């Protein structure tokens, strides 16, 4: 009896401690709930924001857009104020009326964002989102083992690199680049386009070393593969660690992706959220974030302050001719399922 009582006592104490912990978080006075990708903000930025404004920032992270979207739509929307979705998800969220219109009187720093990155298909006039980071998708290749710089996505189908090609395990990116290679748009969902893409990807399968995710970076640094499809940010990472690697965007064009800051419609702290977004666009903060994350920044002053080497690095800042050949992903709507099925079939075959 004594033993049971003592165990119950211990657990009751723990429970009280735990519950007291959660009342802290529900402290209503001036708290902002931010939901962002993992490792996507420089250390100390949220603390600085709290220091300057007195607003406490509660910060959660996710690994991919789909996880965040599911959580928001399944009831989690009341738990967050600011989110960082990618382009096609913003489009979906706008269509489903989940985002709040941003009052730019509270976000004057929007003028520091380059007009080139505003007014894009997924959010015309930027009514609902403010650009945070952007990048491209391209090919990383080993210059010592590839005779000349690839100019087409076709190099991923080149027999001589059999078993040394890495493709992304990503529905949009892999199907998208195939569509681009075949001359279609990356957002094409017609039966003809998808059938052609499927055939091409199945044709490629025997040449592919692996449909990889994050491990790709280590593999390319170690020289375990010759050619890989990569995001520009990751490309910069691996190129720093293996001098033989180089990045190129094929002539057919590629995907340009954006992660923007948005405010959920259900947010009760819209003014605090706008303050936060404004803060993130401020030059010193945007510079700190850029230095930590190393992706491409849409902020004019931060870009101008970069050293010449970084500015002219086409990995991070492709010139306008390349930029013109790139497309932003549009939300596929009901065709998302079609794409998913296609990709599952390709991986499983």
């Amino acid at each position: 009896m004594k033993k049971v009582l003592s165990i119950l006592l211990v657990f009751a104490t723990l429970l009280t401690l735990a519950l007291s912990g959660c009342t802290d978080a529900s402290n209503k006075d001036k708290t902002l709930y931010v939901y962002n990708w993992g490792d996507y903000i420089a250390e100390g930025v949220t603390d600085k924001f709290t220091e300057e404004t007195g607003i406490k920032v509660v910060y959660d992270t996710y690994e991919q857009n789909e996880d965040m979207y599911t959580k928001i739509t399944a009831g989690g929307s009341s738990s967050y104020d600011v989110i960082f979705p990618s382009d096609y998800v913003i489009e979906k969220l706008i269509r489903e009326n989940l985002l709040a219109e941003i009052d730019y009187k509270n976000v004057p720093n929007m003028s520091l964002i380059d007009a080139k990155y505003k007014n894009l298909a997924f959010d015309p006039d930027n009514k609902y989102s403010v650009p945070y980071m952007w990048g491209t998708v391209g090919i990383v290749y080993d210059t010592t083992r590839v005779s000349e710089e690839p100019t087409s996505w076709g190099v991923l189908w080149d027999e001589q690199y059999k078993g040394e090609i890495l493709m992304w395990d990503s529905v949009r990116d892999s199907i998208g680049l195939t569509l681009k290679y075949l001359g279609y748009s990356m957002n094409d969902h017609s039966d003809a386009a998808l059938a052609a893409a499927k055939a091409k990807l199945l044709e490629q399968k025997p040449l592919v070393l692996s449909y990889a995710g994050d491990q790709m970076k280590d593999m390319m640094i170690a020289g375990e593969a010759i050619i890989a499809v990569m995001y520009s940010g990751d490309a910069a990472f691996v190129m720093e660690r293996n001098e033989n690697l180089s990045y190129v965007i094929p002539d057919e064009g590629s995907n340009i992706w954006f992660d923007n800051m948005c405010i959920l419609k259900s947010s009760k702290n819209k003014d605090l959220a706008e303050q936060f977004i404004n803060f993130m666009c401020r030059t010193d903060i945007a510079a700190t974030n850029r230095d930590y994350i190393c992706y491409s920044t849409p902020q004019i002053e931060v870009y101008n302050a970069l050293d010449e080497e970084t500015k002219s690095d086409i990995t991070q800042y492709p010139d306008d001719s390349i930029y013109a050949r790139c497309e932003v992903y549009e939300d596929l709507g009901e065709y998302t399922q079609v794409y998913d099925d296609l990709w599952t079939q390709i991986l499983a075959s």
Partner: protein
Amino acid sequence: MKFFKRLSYVYSVLIFLFLYAPIVVLIVYSFNSEKSRAKWGGLTLDWYRALFSNSEIMRALSTTVTIALLSSVIAVVIGTMAAVGIYNMRRRSKMAVMSLAYLPMLNADIVTGVSLLLIFSALGLRLGYFTLLLAHVTFNIPYVILSVMPKLKQLDPNLYEAAQDLGAPPATAFFRVVMPEISPGIVTGFLLAFTMSIDDFVISFFTTGSGVSTLSIMIYSMARRGIKPEINALSAIMFIVVLSLLLIINLRSANDAKRTDSRPVSVGARASGR
């Protein structure tokens, strides 16, 4: 004959190698001064130092451990009571309740996770530590029931009655006679619940908020940008701790088994508190 013995020995070694090689690599690379797995930059304790000064990881670690402990304890209490109750039910109701009880275990994690999220938001609960705890208790209970039920079935059906015949009030009869007999099942249930709790990602992801994060959520969130080497250091430490605990427990129980004789023969002696 000796050949086959050797062969089976080699086979077991290979299996263990297969199981532990990734962990060994992880531990070795926690000392690598280069961030990437591909290059070896020389030995360093930097990541261990960085780990302890990284408040985000430390917070996630403490959340993970406290949630695991609390939810396992609560699940054991509820699960044992449930198991005893189910054990004493009639056939039909027993089968019905058992199927319901095993549902969280059979469901895909994402189904459990999202449905819990829907319930929490319907109830107006803000996502945070409390909802995370509730979710963990929910999916842990079936594992406890699963571990305790076999022990109940092995129980002599007359034990409880016999204890009462000898003068023990019902509560004493249960706690002093039945519980010790099923305690291995309870301990197994606790350990299983603890493990499932630490391991869980999907359900935790959908039921937490307010900055409360577990280790698995934090590590998964790093996937897009690369897993920090501090995580290697943390994993190495966790592995060593668990390994040592297991060794200690197993050595102690091996010693205990040598010392004690077979289980107590007389029910009467037990019930009267000796």
